[in-house]
């Protein structure tokens, strides 16, 4: 043990003993001979308070203090030991009971105060019984009147403890001195007022004709109630002790409103008065404190939830069972562009949920599952918004009592979706036009071949027949030529009609187009577990193209790859798109890890109406090649080194690059 620890032990052992001794000596002033019992015994409160607050370890120094007090009072050491043991037993019993009941030392709950009162009376009962017995043992009065002695001891112990115990239990340096200075001033004023009133009333400082004796003793009640309302129980306990000490002192000396009879009766009357004042006031202070704490907790919790709701970007609206708004979060009001008071009490449909789909969805609020989800378009002062709402009914006894709706602004997502959808539609439209054009072109080519054969054969016939052949025969063959030519003209017109529109060419970034198409076909790739790898050269100069058509080519080629991989259940499932600068052109390669094509098919893969897919029109690659060639580029197909296919196309740059040196 170091000196410091020794010092601490000494202090912790000495202070209880000293405190008991002091309290005991004060108590001895209230011994009225011939009785050996004191009429108030504050040391009981000291013992109970210290044992409760600082633990039963302090019983030994307390007992020492009690022993000293008894010796001081003139008892024989043997009796003094018994008295000390009795006092300690009462304190131990009371402290154990308080600990068992989980009473908080601050006494800031009503139940703590009530338990404390019960424990004080219990502890007093134990100690007073033992002490009365010891006093009888030590005295010469015999056992007659023992009950009265016990009763007196009990009253003295209980009264002393009632005044002193709350102070020792609850006083804490941390909150003894209230914070802002106004409250300190108030506390000091109340304390001065209590002391002054006590002094005036009990010291009979007023002229006798003004002193109305007993009724004046109630003058302290309003002050105590004020203190109970305004301050913690600890401070109320101090004021009670202050008042009690003054009252007891003067009454003991035969003054004050209770000084009408013998001192013993006077003191007992004062005890009743103090108990009637102290217990309710302490209870009131604790109850009010408890309520303040609960209110603060509620306020904190409310503030916490309010903070949560008010700092949300999500829109939060609460309505009553009739659909009238009772709360709208700041984000909601901001989006709607109206202050909260102006929409409170209005039906929700005035603000939102006024379209039929939303109303349909809201039907789900009034029956299981008592929740709904809907998206709606809303025109507000800040423009047109898309909102997604999740609403949930609050049920009370099976009936809907309120609805809480949480909305999210999904305008950006909706716009992006709409843009993607429009793009897809456009692509599909261009695809249809291209398919038609390609079909016409393919048909024209296919039909023009036999028509060419027909006319050539016929014209050869005419030449071979010579001028002097049968005119009928010549005419017939001439008609064959004319009709075949007409058929070709019709086909030509059809083609010209379909091919009429050609989209505008602009300078575009190939990588950008590849990325857009990758995003477009991603769902399909994902569905077939195909990985799309982009290997895009940086710093590519722009190309002069009709972007939508190049999109179509990319979609065709990538989709072909995905379908080939999916159909063959290839173990490697990847499509790689690469871009690179190649001379005055940008080259795009699309490689797939599919099964590839049979060598025989490779030659005619670009021919119209040639397809390897069940149900395929066989126009995709043909269209793609037409588009690329119309842009002045070329499209090639080749088997890939590690299996699969590679399609490669080139596009001319929007502006020629300067020739490079070397």
């Amino acid at each position, binding site marked *: 043990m170091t000196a410091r620890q020794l010092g601490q032990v000494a202090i912790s052992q000495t202070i209880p003993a000293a405190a008991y001794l002091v309290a005991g000596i004060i108590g001895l002033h209230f011994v009225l001979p011939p009785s050996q019992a004191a009429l108030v015994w504050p040391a009981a409160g000291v013992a109970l308070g210290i044992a409760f607050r600082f633990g039963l370890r302090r019983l030994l120094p307390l007992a020492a203090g009690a022993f000293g007090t008894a010796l001081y009072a003139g008892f024989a050491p043997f009796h003094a030991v018994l008295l000390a043991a009795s006092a300690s037993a009462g304190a131990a019993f009371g402290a154990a009971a308080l600990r068992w009941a989980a009473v908080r030392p601050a006494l800031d709950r009503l139940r703590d105060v009530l338990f404390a009162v019960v424990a004080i009376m219990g502890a007093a009962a134990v100690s007073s019984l033992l002490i009365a017995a010891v006093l009888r043992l030590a005295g010469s009065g015999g056992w007659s009147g023992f009950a009265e002695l016990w009763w007196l001891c009990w009253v003295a112990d209980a009264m002393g403890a009632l005044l002193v115990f709350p102070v020792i239990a609850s006083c804490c340096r941390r909150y003894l001195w209230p914070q802002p200075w106004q409250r300190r001033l108030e506390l000091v004023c109340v304390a001065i007022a209590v002391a002054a009133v006590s002094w005036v009333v009990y010291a009979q400082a007023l002229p006798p004709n003004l002193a109305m004796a007993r009724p004046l003793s109630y003058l302290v009640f309003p002050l105590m109630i004020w203190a109970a309302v305004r301050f913690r129980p600890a401070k109320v306990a101090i004021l009670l002790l202050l008042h009690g000490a003054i009252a007891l002192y003067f009454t003991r000396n035969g003054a004050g409103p209770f000084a009408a009879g013998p001192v013993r009766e006077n003191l007992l009357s004062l005890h009743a008065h103090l108990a009637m004042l102290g217990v309710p006031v302490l209870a009131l202070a604790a109850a009010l404190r408890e309520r303040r704490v609960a209110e603060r907790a509620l306020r904190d919790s409310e503030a916490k939830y309010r903070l949560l709701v008010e700092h949300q970007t999500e829109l939060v609206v609460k309505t009553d069972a009739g659909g009238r708004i009772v709360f709208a979060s700041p984000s909601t009001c901001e989006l709607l562009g109206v202050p909260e008071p102006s929409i409170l009490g209005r039906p929700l449909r005035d603000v939102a949920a006024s379209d039929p789909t939303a109303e349909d969805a809201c039907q789900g609020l009034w029956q299981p599952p008592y929740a709904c989800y809907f998206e709606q378009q809303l025109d507000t002062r800040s423009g047109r918004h898309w909102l997604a709402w999740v609403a949930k009914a609050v049920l009370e006894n099976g009936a809907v009592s309120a609805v809480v709706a949480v909305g999210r602004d999904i305008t950006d997502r909706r716009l992006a979706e709409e843009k993607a959808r429009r793009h897809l539609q456009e692509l599909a439209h261009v695809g249809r036009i291209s398919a038609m054009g390609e079909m016409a072109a393919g048909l*024209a080519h296919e039909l023009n071949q036999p028509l060419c054969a*027909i*006319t050539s054969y016929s014209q*050869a016939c005419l*030449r071979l027949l010579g001028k002097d052949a049968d005119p009928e025969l010549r005419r017939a063959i001439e008609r064959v030529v004319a009709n075949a030519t007409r058929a*070709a003209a019709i086909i030509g017109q059809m083609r010209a009609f379909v091919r009429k529109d050609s989209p505008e060419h602009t300078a575009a970034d190939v990588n950008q187009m590849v990325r857009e198409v990758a995003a477009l076909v991603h769902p399909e790739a994902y569905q077939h577990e195909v990985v799309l790898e982009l290997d895009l050269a940086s710093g590519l100069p722009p190309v002069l193209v009709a972007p939508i058509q190049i999109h179509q080519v990319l979609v065709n080629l990538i989709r072909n790859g995905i379908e080939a991989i999916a159909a063959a259940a290839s173990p490697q499932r990847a499509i790689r798109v690469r871009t690179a600068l190649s001379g005055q052109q940008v080259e795009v390669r699309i490689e797939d890890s599919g099964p590839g094509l049979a060598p025989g098919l490779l*030659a005619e893969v670009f021919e119209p109406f040639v397809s390897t897919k069940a149900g395929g029109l066989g126009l995709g690659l043909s269209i793609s090649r037409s588009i690329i060639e119309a842009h002045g580029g070329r499209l090639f197909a080749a088997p890939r080194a590690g299996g699969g296919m590679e399609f490669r196309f080139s596009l001319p740059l929007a502006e020629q690059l300067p020739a490079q040196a070397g």
Partner: protein
Amino acid sequence: MTHGTVFVVDDEPDVRDALNLLIRSMGHQVQTFPSAAAFLAAYRPEQPGCLVLDVRLPGMSGLDLQQRLREQECAIPIVFISGHGDIPMAVRAVQAGAVDFLVKPFSDADLLDRIERALARDRQQRRQAAESADVKARLERLTPREKEVLRLLLRGAVNKMVARELDLSIRTVEIHRARILHKMGAANVPQLIRMVMRSGSEREADGAQPVPADAGHSTVSTRPAS
């Protein structure tokens, strides 16, 4: 009629056969091929004639074949035929030196016209090539001094200027000139100049620098006659 063969390349058998018949009925010799590769394998550049070429062929396309022939400095005139009335493609073909571009089906008169134009171009190119080869051979026969005189004559110098430049007497220059005209087979100086210019041999006639080894071929290149 042996001023050239019409080579037809088309993948469609009936078209090939019909064209064979038609062109033969016009009085031309015809050879047909189903693909560009087959044509390249069989064709020798010294064969006179023209090429009737389908644009869209399996494997090497008609445009590819045109490109290949150009790379080989083979100047055979080409008439493109196509089932597609594809204008950009036709423009490209003609820009690359094709005689014309016919859309299937075509009239026999159009085809005959284009074939005859192509054959005429072929004949002219060959004659020109032969002429320039002849002029070159004659130039080779000139002595260094005569070449020097010729060089100055080509620059438009008269005898007196030539004499002063080369430090010769006018008489000597006249003799050189007469020899040159004789050796080159020209009647007079303007004709001589035309002859040399047309053969594209003026640089050889210049004689100062050594003649590049392949310059002889370049005179057979596809320079249109017009």
